[in-house]
């Protein structure tokens, strides 16, 4: 893995590109799709993209995980940035909580209207 970084530009494109692509795909789903579950799927894909970006900015070429396990006590200078990882941890759990609430709302909307498509739920304007 030492020569991983020779191809930095390709990998940059890979990581950033796929993260941004995930955000855009999710955004597309949220804006265009009519089914509530699809919209929630879109939201979770956006979240996934943001989390990937977040971890990517903390990565340092040739680094290793910020864990001082036996054999790695002296690797301070090679460690990747731990802060984004800690933040992403929080963000993932929060994203899951929001997804759970969203899905419960979907279930209730379905019970109420017997449909989960927003073009058929018209009590309030969308």
């Amino acid at each position, binding site marked *: 893995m030492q020569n991983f970084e020779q191809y930095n530009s390709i990998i*940059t494109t890979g990581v950033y590109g796929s993260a941004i692509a995930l955000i855009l795909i999710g955004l597309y789903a949220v804006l265009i799709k009519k089914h509530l579950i699809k919209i929630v799927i879109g939201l979770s894909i956006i979240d996934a993209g943001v989390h990937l*970006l977040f971890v990517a900015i903390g990565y*340092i070429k040739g680094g290793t995980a910020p864990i*001082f396990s036996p054999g790695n006590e002296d690797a301070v200078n090679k460690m990747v940035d731990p802060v984004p990882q800690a933040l992403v941890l929080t963000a993932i759990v929060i994203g899951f909580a929001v997804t759970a609430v969203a899905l419960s709302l979907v279930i209730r909307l379905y019970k109420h209207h017997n449909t989960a498509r927003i073009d058929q739920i018209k009590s309030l304007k969308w």
Partner: protein
Amino acid sequence: MKKVLVLVLLVIVGYFLTDTFNLIPFGENRIGNPQDEQTVAGYYLNNTVEKTSVANTVTAIVVNYRGFDTLGEVTVLFLATTGLGSILFRRKEDEEEIERINKPSSSLMQTGSRVLFPLIALLGIYVFIHGHLTPGGGFQGGAIIATGFLLMLISYKNFKAGHTMLNWVESLAGITFVSIGLWGLLTGGTFLENVLPAGELNNLISGGVIPIIYIAVGFKVAAELTGVLDILLNIKPKK
């Protein structure tokens, strides 16, 4: 028409994001040389071992340096469970017969889940007890235990998640977390301060209150997620 507008919007957003992240090179060392303690991350990397004796810096940040975030995070999960309960609440009068699953799974699966359930629970407990030494911690361990419960819930019709016990575990774990925080305050320090001795690096008993907090978080998350799954599974009316 709407599609065209959205595609234009997507192109704009994509261009905007690409442009922004072009300015942020990938894989570059932004924390500087940790020895200089230039940035927050450098400080963490350089001081965690010395000050808290926690091998996993991420855990140290999550539980100690930014422990307040974790408290908030646990609260978010707690509120999500409460909110889920209120959103999917069924009244007594229109209470239908509900059933979680139509039929029990095959006898093979039943045996399998019986065997795997303690192992999965053990794995979860291992993950959160060792949160300060290895990757993982309270959230991951709790999630794993909750999936173990789910395995039982979807395999057996007559397996009950034990709401009394879940309530107790959840409340006690939450109270433990906040009490540890208040303990620091009462002993003259600050909220969530690490009041116990740090111990020796890479020992199981090290890091002061950090493993205790993570264990409490683990139990709490496990109880909460099991509660969420149980609520979600228990809303199907009997045909």
